[in-house]
């Protein structure tokens, strides 16, 4: 199969080069570059409107970028061959599925489509749902629908899973369960996952790499462990609540309420202290705060 050939040749499942997109005259982003290594789980995090959906749509060929291209297994995402499409499992934001069918009909449908179809994980998930066999998917709850959609992707047995906001609508407990299941599944079966999420909680349990996007640009792409190690928050208590607080390349983001300054940086405490003394900032205390991925995300992108 051609797909397998590509798999051996390239080390990237996804490779987006110089991606630029405008909606009319409104710029979404310019010259965006990122890659997803095979076998890795990459989380694309960003605030609403940062361009997550645009990226997903370009990746799935539902949007033609103004310039640049995305390659999936070496093929332009605008013209994926059926063989490559078969290797991609795609979860649409909101767990959209053919909800005019019931769970048996939809399984019957997809089993005819995908040659690697393995219904086991699907029925395993379905057995946990309290739905009647003839119940249409459209009449199910949000959580039930999401499990149908996820179950179908697992049964498809794709090499690359593109999950757009997959945790939406999942109960916290189930979300964690699913995240753990997904990570185990991906690592055991050498799957690549590209996912977006606006719920960042629990995400560090799942992803290998993090890609944080802000309006018009990528803020960072690195292994999540490294990011969590390097990215720090210092809380500075100022002597004078009305004093100006300086900025330089060290400060990635500063959030200030009166005398309390949250200082986000990749730098060390020493570098910060040196910076403060250079600018003659009088402070009461400086201390580093432990961060979760969610805190780090907010710290990097800002609260607004």
């Amino acid at each position, binding site marked *: 199969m051609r797909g397998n050939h590509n798999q051996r040749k390239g080390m990237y499942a996804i490779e987006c080069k110089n991606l630029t997109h405008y909606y009319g005259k409104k710029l979404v982003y310019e010259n965006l570059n990122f890659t997803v290594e095979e076998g890795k789980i990459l989380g694309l995090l960003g605030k609403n409107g940062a361009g997550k959906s645009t990226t997903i749509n370009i990746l799935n*060929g539902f*949007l033609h970028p103004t310039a640049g291209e995305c390659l999936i297994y070496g093929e332009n995402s605008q013209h994926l061959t059926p063989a490559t499409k078969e290797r991609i499992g*795609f979860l649409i934001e909101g767990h*959209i599925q*053919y909800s005019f069918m019931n769970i048996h009909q939809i399984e019957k*449908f997809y089993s005819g*489509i995908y040659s690697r179809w393995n219904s086991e994980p699907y029925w395993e998930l379905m057995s946990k749902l309290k739905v009647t066999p003839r119940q249409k998917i459209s009449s199910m709850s949000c959580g039930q629908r999401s499990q149908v959609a996820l179950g179908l992707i697992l049964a498809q047995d794709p090499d690359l899973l593109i999950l757009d906001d997959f945790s939406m609508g999942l109960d916290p407990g189930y979300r964690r369960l699913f995240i753990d299941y997904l990570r185990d599944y991906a690592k055991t079966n050498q799957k690549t996952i590209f996912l977006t999420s606006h719920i960042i909680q629990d995400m560090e349990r799942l992803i290998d790499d993090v890609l944080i996007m802000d309006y018009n640009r990528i803020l960072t792409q690195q292994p999540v462990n490294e990011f969590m190690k390097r990215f720090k928050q210092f809380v500075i208590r100022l002597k004078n609540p009305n004093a100006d607080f300086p900025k330089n390349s060290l400060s990635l983001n500063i959030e200030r309420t009166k005398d309390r300054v949250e200082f986000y940086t990749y730098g060390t405490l020493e570098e910060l202290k040196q910076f403060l003394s250079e600018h003659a900032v009088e402070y009461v205390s400086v201390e580093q705060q432990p961060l979760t991925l969610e805190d780090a995300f907010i710290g990097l992108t800002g609260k607004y």
Partner: protein
Amino acid sequence: MQIDYTMWKAIIYKEWIKIRWTAAIFLGLGILVLINILLRIRHDILFVDATNYWYNVLFRGYNYASMLKFLPFLAGLGISAAQYFPETVNRRIKLTFHLPVKESRVLMGMHLFGTGSLLLIYAVWLILFVIISAIYFPPEIMQSTLITIIPWFMGGLATYFMAALILLEPVWLFRVLYALVAYGFITMFYQRAGLAAYLPALPELAVLTVLSSIVVLFSGYRFRKGEM
């Protein structure tokens, strides 16, 4: 080849699930209308006698099948809506385009199935019509009535094709514009005219109907390229 076969079977299965009730309802509705036509002919021939009935058809342009007029149109609209509306809800057609088939092929496959179903319904109606006509009327009367109603059926197909185009179009403004064009186009099949008056226009209308069968590809393409 085996894979291809099961895949198309699956795609047809999905289309069938979408349209089966609509198709059954229209098939039944048409049969009821035709039974009604049959009963009315029988009744009228008893009351005004056959000679006068024939006279009204031959010299006064009476169309005994006029009840059928907008049925093919409604069936085309209904099947198109049943088939394509669920695809547009939540932009679900993304799922369809993501299937491991070439996008235009999967769309044409769906379209072909819808067209085939519609043709099957029309065929049943037309066969019933021919049987009813053959009982009561000579070929001349059946022929001129057939020429009168054939454009309605072609118009029904064109309606199916144009409705699919409109439903799959991602931009609302263009949906409205397409609807205007579709209105102008579809009314060509439903002009008020005497019996058999459509005779010279039949070849042109047939060509236009066939041409319009692939227009859905246009809005499908626009959808896929993310027009908004």
